[in-house]
C-alpha cells in the first residue's frame, strides 16, 4: 500500500472520529508573534472553561474553550493589555470566568481564611506557651537525682 493511500485511509478513519476530537490549544490558533502568544497562554490559563469542571480554557478540549481562546487572541491582536482582555471577559461572562477570584466583599472570607486560621491557631499556641512560663518546673526528686548522677557518671557514648 502506498503511503498516500494509507494516509487517505487514516484520514477517513480519523474523520469518522472528528466530532469528539476537539482539542486543547491547536496549531491553527497559535499567534505568529511568540510574545503575544505567550501572553495569550498566560491569560487563558487564568480563565475558566465555562462548561467544564474547573479546567482553564488553555487546558480544555471543549469547543467553547476554543472559541474563548480565539477571542482572547483577537483582543490581544487589537492591541489590548492583559488587564483589558480580562476585563472584557469578565464583563461578558461575569466573575465566574476568573479562576483566581477577585478580592471583594463576597470573597473576603475566602482570601482571608489562611490568615484567619494562622492567627487563631498561633494565638492559641502562644497562650499555651505563656501558661507554661508562669509554671515553674517541678524540682527533681531524690530518686531522679540519683539516676541522673548515675547516668552522668557512666562515661559511655549514648
Amino acid at each position: 500500500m502506498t503511503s498516500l493511500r494509507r494516509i487517505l485511509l487514516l484520514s477517513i478513519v480519523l474523520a469518522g472520529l472528528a466530532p469528539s476530537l476537539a482539542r486543547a490549544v491547536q496549531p491553527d490558533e497559535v499567534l505568529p508573534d511568540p510574545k503575544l502568544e505567550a501572553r495569550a497562554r498566560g491569560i487563558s490559563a487564568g480563565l475558566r472553561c465555562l462548561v467544564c469542571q474547573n479546567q482553564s480554557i488553555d487546558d480544555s478540549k471543549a469547543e467553547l474553550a476554543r472559541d474563548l481562546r480565539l477571542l482572547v487572541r483577537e483582543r490581544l491582536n487589537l492591541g489590548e493589555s492583559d488587564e483589558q482582555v480580562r476585563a472584557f471577559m469578565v464583563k461578558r461572562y461575569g466573575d465566574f470566568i476568573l479562576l483566581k477570584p477577585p478580592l471583594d466583599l463576597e470573597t473576603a472570607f475566602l482570601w482571608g481564611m489562611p490568615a484567619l486560621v494562622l492567627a487563631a491557631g498561633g494565638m492559641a499556641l502562644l497562650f499555651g506557651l505563656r501558661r507554661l512560663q508562669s509554671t515553674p518546673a517541678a524540682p527533681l526528686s531524690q530518686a531522679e537525682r540519683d539516676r541522673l548522677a548515675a547516668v552522668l557518671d557512666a562515661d559511655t557514648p549514648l
Partner: protein
Amino acid sequence: MVVETGHYALALALAVALLQSVLPLWGTRSGDSGLASIAVPAAITQFLLLGYAFAALTYAHVVSDFSLVTVAENSLTTKPLIYKIAGVWGNHEGSMLLWVLILAAFGAAVAILERGMANELRANTLAVQGWISLAFLCFILFTSDPFVRRFPAPFEGQDLNPLLQDPGLAIHPPLLYLGYVGSSIVFSFAVAALISGRLDAAWARYVRPWVLIAWIFLTLGIAMGSYWAYYTLGWGGFWFWDPVENASLMPWLAGTALLHSAAVMEKREVLKIWTLFLAILTFSLSLLGTFLVRSGVLTSVHSFASDPTRGVFILIILTVFIGGSLALYAWRAPSLNQRSLFAPVSRESALAVNNLLLTTCCATVLTGTLYPLTLEALTGDKISVGTPFFNLTLGPLVALIVLLMPLSQSLAWKRGDLLGAAQRVTVAALGGLVVALVLVAVVRGGPVLAAVGLGLAVYLIVGSFADVASRIWAHGQPARVMLARAVGLPRSAWGAAIVHAGLGVTLMGLAATGWGVERIATAKLGQGIDLGPYQATIENLRSRQGPNYSEVLAHTVISRGGAAVAVVEPAKRSFPARQTTVTEAGIVTLGFGQIYISLGDQHADGSIDERMFWKPLVTTIWIGAVIMAFGGIVSLSDRRLRIGFARRAARVRAAASPAAPEPAE
C-alpha cells in the same frame, strides 16, 4: 446462583454490622465482658461476608453475566480480563462495595492483630467501626445495590468508560480507598476513647501504626491518581485543583498533621485533645470526599452516575457521623485530663507549629473547594476558585513548612537549642542556596521561582538527614563505630528522614516544571521538531486493532544531536461500543525527564497536529511520593510502631520479670 449468594452475603453483613455496632457497647457499659467480646468474631465475620459478596460480583464481571445491571452497563465480552476485574470498582455500585469491604478489612485487622489492647477500647472501637459499616451497607442496599438483575438480559454490555480502561484503574481506587477508609479505624479509636473517657499515651501508641498505614496508602493513591491523569488526559498536567483531587488532598494534610501530633502525644502526653480532633477531622474529610465524589454535586470522571437520592443519603450519613462525633467531642473532650505544657523551643512546639501550618493548608483547600458551592447557594453568585488561587495561598505556606522541616527535626524533645539546630542544618541550607544561585545565574532570564523551588528542595533533601547524621557522626571515631550507630538508630528516625527527603524529591520535580518546553505544531511526516535538548520526528502513521478498540499510532523517533535515543508511539484510540475516542499520549523517560507527545487532528496533506512537551525531572514528582511511602514503611517496621506491639511488649515484660510489679502508667 453465585450472584444470589453474594447478594445474600451482603444482606447478612448488614445484620452482622447491626450486632457489631450495638452488643459490644452494651457489654462495656454493663460490664459484661462476654457481650463485649462479640465485637471480635463479628468484625471477622463481617469481613468474610463482604469478601464473599465482592468475590461474587467479581465473578459476575469475569463471566460477563449481563443480567446484572452493573455488569451490562460497564462491561463487554471482549474487554480484557484485567479490566473485567478492575471494572468491578469502575462504577458507582461496585466502588461502594469495595469501600465497605476495605472498611470491614480494617475492622477485622484490628480484631485479629490488636489482641494486647485493653478489651474495652477494642470492643468500643470495633463497635464504632460497625456503625460506619451499618450506614454504608444501608446506603448500598437501599440506593446502590450492585446485585440488581434485569430480564431479559442484553446480549452484549455497554463497555466501560474508555478513560477508565487503563491499568491505573486496577491500582488507583484500591490504594486511595485503603487510605481514605483506613482513616476510619483511627476515627473509631478516637470515638471509642471519647466514649470511655480514657485517653493516654498508650492510646497514641495503638493508633500511630494505623495512622501511618492509612497515610502510606493515601500518599501512594494520590500519586498514582496524579500520574494516571498525567498520562491519560493528554496535556501533560498532573494536578488540577479539581474538587475531587482536593477531596483526597484534605485528608492527606489532616492525616499528616495527625501523624505528627500523635507522635508528640505518645512521647510527651501533650496535644491529646488536639490529636483526638485531628483523628475525627481526617475521617470526616474522607467522608466529605466520598460525598463530593459520589453524590453528583460535582461532575467529573470520578462521579460515574449522579442520582439525587444517593446524594441526600450520603449527606445524611455525613451529617450524622461528622456532627455526631464533633458533638461527642465537644461534650467529652473537656473532661479528659490535659497537660498542655511545653517549652517554646522544643521538638514538640516545632511540631505544634507544623500542625498549625498543615491545618491552615487544609482549611484553605477546604474553603477553596466549598466556597463556590456555598456562595452560589447563599447569594446565587457564581465564582470560580482554581489553580491561581491555590498556588498563591498554599505556595508560601508550603515554603514555610519546608523551611521548618529540617530545623524541627534537629530540635530535641522537651527543651531544644535553636542555635544548635540551626548549626546542624547549615550544610543543607548552604547547599540549597548555592543550587538556587547557580541556577539563577546559569539560566539567566529563566523562571526565578523554579530556581528558588529547586534550592528549597535541595535544602530539604539534605536537611532531612541532618538529624540522623548528627546522631551517627562522632569525631575521630572509626567508621565501624559510626556504622554501628547508624544501624542502632531507631527505624522511625530513619523513616522520618526518608519521608521528608521524599517530599524534597517531589518538590524538585514540581520546581522543574518551570523549565519545561511545550510545542504546539502541525507536523509533517519526517519533519523534525525541536523539544528542549531533543528533536522529535514522526516517521509514519499506522493503524492497529485492539480487543475492543481500534487505534492510529504515530511512530515518532526522538533524537539528540542527530542520534536516535528513543521511539514513542502516541495514539488515538476509538471505542465503538461507547463511540468515544481517547488519546494515548506517547511518553518516554529520558533520565528523570520525559518527552510527552499527544496527537491532535490529522490534515488532508498528511500532516498531523501535535502537542509536545519536554518535561525535565518530571518523574521525580512521583518518585518522591514512592520514597515517602517507603519511608513510612521503614517507620512502620520500627519495633515501637509495629501493630500489636503492646501485646508482645507485655509478654516480654512478663517473661523477663514475672515477680516485678507492673510499672504504673
